[in-house]
């Protein structure tokens, strides 16, 4: 099964971002979207998440899908603990025990068990982003949308969070759409990598990454070659 967007049109501030744009996302995989800043990557995520309406176009397979988000900043409620923040994203329709179970499980997976009762102000930036990752996974969604969640973090923290993320994802295999401007991030996390052009947006390159996520190294020749292709497509 695939999720598809067909014939998408969207203007934003009198710039036509999307003109007859088509893309598909295979389910159960991580699709990375690379592109120059201002090309409307966030707008695409917002259209998928049903936050903004396209001017026209059809979204196929998205209608009954539930989405969760990982933002660039963690966006945690300062007055809720780590646990409370994760629970916040869970529907009150779920029974209490179910919510507890989900929350505890993902707090363990992001290795914050010792900090479950901490308020965000007492956590480091990386820990906060881990809470935000746990929140997105704990929410029983079909698709996780990520809008440059690693932007501005130092390389060590970045690799650490990529590790955390891929470990949870392996056990979960949820559909992920990951917007980034960092080629290395996409090489480490993407099952498929899509490079978008400036507005009006077109797909320049679409590449599958054939190595399992757990076994990737940026030093391998395969990823080095792939990186070159992506960089060329981005015009760098």
């Amino acid at each position: 099964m695939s999720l598809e967007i067909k014939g998408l049109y969207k203007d934003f501030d009198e710039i036509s971002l999307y003109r007859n744009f088509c893309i598909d996302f295979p389910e159960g995989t991580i699709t990375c979207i690379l592109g120059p800043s201002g090309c409307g990557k966030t707008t695409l995520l917002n259209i998928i998440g049903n936050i903004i309406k396209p001017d026209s176009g059809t979204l196929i397979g998205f209608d009954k899908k539930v989405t969760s988000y990982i933002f660039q900043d963690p966006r945690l409620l300062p007055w809720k603990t780590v646990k409370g923040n994760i629970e916040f994203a869970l529907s009150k329709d779920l029974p209490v025990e179910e919510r507890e179970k989900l929350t505890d499980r993902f707090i363990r997976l992001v290795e914050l068990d010792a900090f479950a009762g901490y308020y965000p102000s007492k956590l480091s930036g990386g820990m906060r982003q881990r809470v935000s990752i746990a929140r997105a996974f704990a929410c029983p969604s079909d698709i996780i949308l990520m809008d440059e969640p690693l932007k501005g973090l130092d390389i060590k923290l970045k690799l650490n969070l990529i590790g955390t993320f891929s470990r949870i994802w392996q056990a979960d295999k949820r559909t992920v759409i990951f917007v980034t401007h960092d080629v290395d991030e996409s090489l480490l996390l993407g099952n498929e990598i899509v490079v978008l052009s400036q507005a009006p947006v077109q797909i320049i390159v679409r590449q599958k990454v054939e190595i399992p996520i757990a076994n990737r190294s940026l030093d391998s020749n395969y990823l080095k070659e792939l990186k070159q292709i992506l960089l060329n497509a981005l015009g760098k």
Partner: protein
Amino acid sequence: MKISFTSKQYVSLASVIFMLAIWKILSMHFDSDFVLPSPEKTFITTLSLFGDSHFLAIVGSTISRGLIGFVLSGILGVGLGIIAGINPHFNAFLRPMLVTIRSTPVIALILLALIWLNPGSVPVFIAMLTMFPFICTNVIDGIKSVDPDLVEMATFYRIGRNRIIRELYIPAILPFIISGASSAMGIGWRAIITGEVLSQPRYGIGTLMQAAQTFLNVDAVIAWTILAVLISYGFEKVIRWSELKLIIWRF
């Protein structure tokens, strides 16, 4: 850290002693209980107030007037403040009223209230009018300070409107409500007692102050004043304490 804290307390203590010393010197200079009784005589008078058979009724009346006024203005201020914070048109509608109430001299409000209301209600009405603008303005500022990214996050996660208000807006404006309550209380007690002096309800600190002034019982006037200050101080402490309890995520 601890040392600097206690040294600060010493300085505060020195300030109190300084005020008492000035008072003592002035009372010795005037040498008349009808002008300025000595601190120790006033202190004894203050203690004797507690023995007054109506003491509880008097102090209780003033405090309950303050609390009723505070609760009413709190409900009104938080309610209208939330609506005004969310709806700019309502805010524009409310703004001139708040400014008018705030800039009207308290004494003018009291004089009008004396014509319109019975003596017991005048201080409550005055307390409400003086406290309401503080609480309301703070709530409006609080709502405006709510991080739009958090609201967006909650919308993205399909959180319902009631939960957004309860779990996002209310906690976000809580610190603003508390600081509004603190300034409101500070000004409110003064207004209530002024109201009591002029409206003369049966029981009330202001009523007794006025009576003491009529008979030139200066020590009693000051004694009631000290009591009023203590009540105001007590409530300020309660507000600070509730701040620590309610806004634990900040500390």
